[in-house]
């Protein structure tokens, strides 16, 4: 049985997380969401003790994989549950890319900025980075 590792992520915006996951191939039809945390499934279909509000089912994670979960913590941030087996594919590089896509969607949907007339005037790739320029002009 592959053990789960936990990673607290600076993610607190559910919609931006869902959009980032979609960018990474986990579109809404490949993600299960729960109001109350739900047990993750191991590769044999066994219920694990780890629970999450947003679950990437193992059949979409990969062959012989376990569910990946994002558990909302009391402070509003999410804790990622990824099995050791799956960290070779969904490790730091994948998590970093998820954070980049998350930041992109957080910026584009910042309601305070949009309400005050800010809009995206430029969007560039700077090396591996994404640069977004917002202006109220």
């Amino acid at each position: 049985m592959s053990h789960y590792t936990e990673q607290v992520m600076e993610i607190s915006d559910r919609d931006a997380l869902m959009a980032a996951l979609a960018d990474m191939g986990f579109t809404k039809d490949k993600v299960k969401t729960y109001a109350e945390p739900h047990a993750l499934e191991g590769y044999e279909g066994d219920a694990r003790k780890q629970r999450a509000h947003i679950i990437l089912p193992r059949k979409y994670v990969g062959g012989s994989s376990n569910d990946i979960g994002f558990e909302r913590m009391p402070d509003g941030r999410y804790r990622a549950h990824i099995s050791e087996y799956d960290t070779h594919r969904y490790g730091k590089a994948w998590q970093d890319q998820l954070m980049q896509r998350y930041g992109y969607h957080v910026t584009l949907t910042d309601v305070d900025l949009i309400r005050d007339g800010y809009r995206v005037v430029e969007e560039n790739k700077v090396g591996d980075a994404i640069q977004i320029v917002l202006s109220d002009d």
Partner: protein
Amino acid sequence: MSKIIVTIGKNGKASVKVEGLQDSSCLAKTKSLLKRLGIIRDQRVDPGVVVNVDEDIKVR
């Protein structure tokens, strides 16, 4: 006119730069965005600053 430039690196870390008019409203919104991006929690944002998760606030 205010410009808010958000750069998100491939490591997921973000930095935000404010250009042009930096009134209190613009800075408040920038601070709010920074918090949403998880860059800062309770740090002060002053005119002309660059805030980066890797570094302390520094004046340009």
